[in-house]
């Protein structure tokens, strides 16, 4: 899935910076609720508004969630400090953002993509979110041409973790896979709901291009990537843009660019040369965060099994590869444990995987059909008591009823395994009825088999197992 991307001998080099809002009850440095969708400026307090005299106090749960996701990304949790990033913007109440700068809490980890490709994680650090501006007047809520702007500080101070990858990504597919995998991990460890559409997960991409093996090229930072799809599209576009410029003999300027979903292009936002001078310095109102080893080990021990391990486990049980589509889909839906449960109840894991992938799409983590009931169904199909078509119908009944006795349902529907002598006579009848088709089949024309199988299916009113019919026909041909 993550094939290397190349274009006229150029390679892209991508690093991703992902901001996620942590699933805490309150803000990073104050006790206002961290809640999406409330009335504007209702979740505010002196710290959130940056009122004179207000002081921040760190939320322990935010630290714990940052540690949790850091450990899930194989990072080292270390002694960390907070700094002030100074800049003026109306949605930044204190005119500085409190963020971990030179001493982040999590460093040096990695994330394995489903196909085994490893992306390095440079760091994951805590910081506070900004408020939200709405631009009034002008067109389409844009800054330009607006008459004034309105600020809501509900989001200001919401805890964020910024996860910075190493520039290991080489294709849009890898970038997409990275974002999906990261999202799955965040949800699995309970660190964030990671909803890109609600902005609780936001992706920036650093993109450059080079000839393979050459030094890194000048990179541009792409902002406003609001879906996994736009991550892929924007990176693809940006790499092509840079290649075109370089091939035309132009020079890439380091700059921040904005992805426009509508026109499918990136646009210059500001060049780095006139970027603000953030004047970082250590936040004097906060003290060092130095989690003791016991705390770190307690968090590590409480981590759930992560998606990558779950995929491997499911793949091994079902005889698939970890990046097989059914394995990816079922694990992503959190139904992998259910499939393993069916296998544990004596069912056939491979069939259970197929059933679950196809029949339980809407049902979320815990399909209502007891694993033992599904196990019976998989065995019936495996043992030839039911054809695949019949099994599918029984499955639909089981899902609709939330479980039941597969054998009874099959009986009710009149699905009975056909007696082999009965089937043999039907096959012989079909051969006798269509001598031309039989002759062609014997002469090696594969297509001719369809007519013969069709006749048997018709005669059996669809109850015959197609595979068994084919096998019998081939057996008869050898006997000729």
């Amino acid at each position: 899935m993550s094939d290397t991307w190349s274009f006229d001998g150029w390679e892209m080099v991508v690093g991703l910076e992902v901001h996620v809002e942590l699933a805490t009850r309150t803000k990073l440095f104050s006790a206002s609720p961290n809640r999406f969708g409330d009335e504007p400026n209702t979740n505010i307090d002196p710290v959130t508004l940056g009122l004179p005299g207000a002081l921040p106090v760190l939320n322990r749960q935010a630290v714990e969630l940052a540690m949790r996701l850091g450990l899930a990304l194989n990072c080292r949790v270390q002694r960390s400090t907070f700094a002030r990033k100074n800049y003026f913007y109306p949605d930044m109440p204190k005119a500085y953002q409190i963020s971990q700068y030179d001493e982040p809490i999590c460093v040096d980890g990695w994330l394995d993509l489903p196909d085994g490709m490893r992306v390095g994680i440079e760091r994951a650090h805590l910081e506070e979110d900004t408020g939200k501006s709405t631009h009034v007047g002008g067109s389409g809520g844009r800054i330009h041409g607006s008459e004034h702007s309105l600020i809501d500080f509900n989001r200001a101070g919401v805890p964020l973790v910024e996860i910075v990858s190493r520039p290991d990504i080489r294709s849009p597919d890898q970038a997409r896979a990275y974002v999906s995998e990261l999202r799955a991990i965040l949800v699995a460890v309970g660190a964030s709901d990671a909803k890109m559409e609600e902005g609780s997960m936001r992706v920036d991409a650093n993109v450059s291009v080079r000839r393979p093996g050459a030094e890194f090229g000048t990179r541009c930072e792409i902002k406003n990537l609001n879906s996994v799809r736009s991550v892929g599209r924007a990176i693809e576009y940006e790499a092509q843009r840079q290649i075109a410029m370089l091939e035309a003999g132009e020079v890439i300027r380091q700059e921040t660019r904005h992805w426009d979903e509508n026109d499918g292009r990136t646009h210059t936002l500001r060049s780095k040369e006139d970027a603000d001078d953030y004047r970082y310095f250590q936040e004097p109102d906060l003290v060092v965060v130095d989690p003791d080893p016991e705390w770190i080990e307690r968090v590590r021990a409480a981590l759930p099994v992560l998606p990558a391990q779950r995929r491997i486990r499911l793949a091994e049980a079902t005889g698939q590869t970890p990046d097989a589509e059914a394995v990816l889909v079922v694990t992503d839906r959190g139904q992998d444990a259910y499939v393993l449960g069916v296998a544990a109840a004596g069912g056939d894991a491979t069939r259970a995987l197929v059933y679950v992938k196809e029949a339980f799409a809407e049902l979320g983590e815990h399909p209502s059909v007891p694993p033992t009931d599904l196990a019976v169904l998989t065995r019936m199909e495996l043992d030839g008591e039911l054809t695949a078509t019949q099994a599918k119908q029984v499955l639909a009944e089981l899902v609709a009823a939330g479980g039941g006795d597969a054998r009874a349902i099959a009986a009710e529907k009149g699905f009975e395994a056909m007696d082999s002598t009965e089937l043999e006579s039907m096959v012989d009848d079909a051969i006798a009825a269509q001598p031309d088709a039989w002759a062609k089949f014997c002469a090696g024309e594969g297509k001719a088999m369809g007519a013969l199988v069709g006749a048997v299916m018709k005669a059996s009113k669809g109850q015959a197992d197609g595979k068994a019919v084919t096998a019998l026909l081939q057996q008869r041909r050898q006997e000729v």
Partner: protein
Amino acid sequence: MSDRITPEAVAKVAKLARLSLTDDELQQATHQLGDMLDHFADIDALDLAGVEPMTHPTPIANVMREDIEMDCLDRDEVLAAAPAAEDGRFRVPPIIGLED
């Protein structure tokens, strides 16, 4: 007059700090800041290799609060005291030259 800081550097600093200076103020600020920096050059002679920077007077660590909600400020009271408000929010003039 000290050459430790130029009027251009002072102008840049004033802009970063969102302060505007008249030409006279710029000259005066350059002069005064230059004098100060001359005075502060006394530490240039110190050998500070290996000295750990001291950011806080007391070596406190791990001060954290529990993740428990407390009462918020009253929005109407806060907005009534704001320079400009509209529709439950703080109002500012168009945001130009500050795009993020």
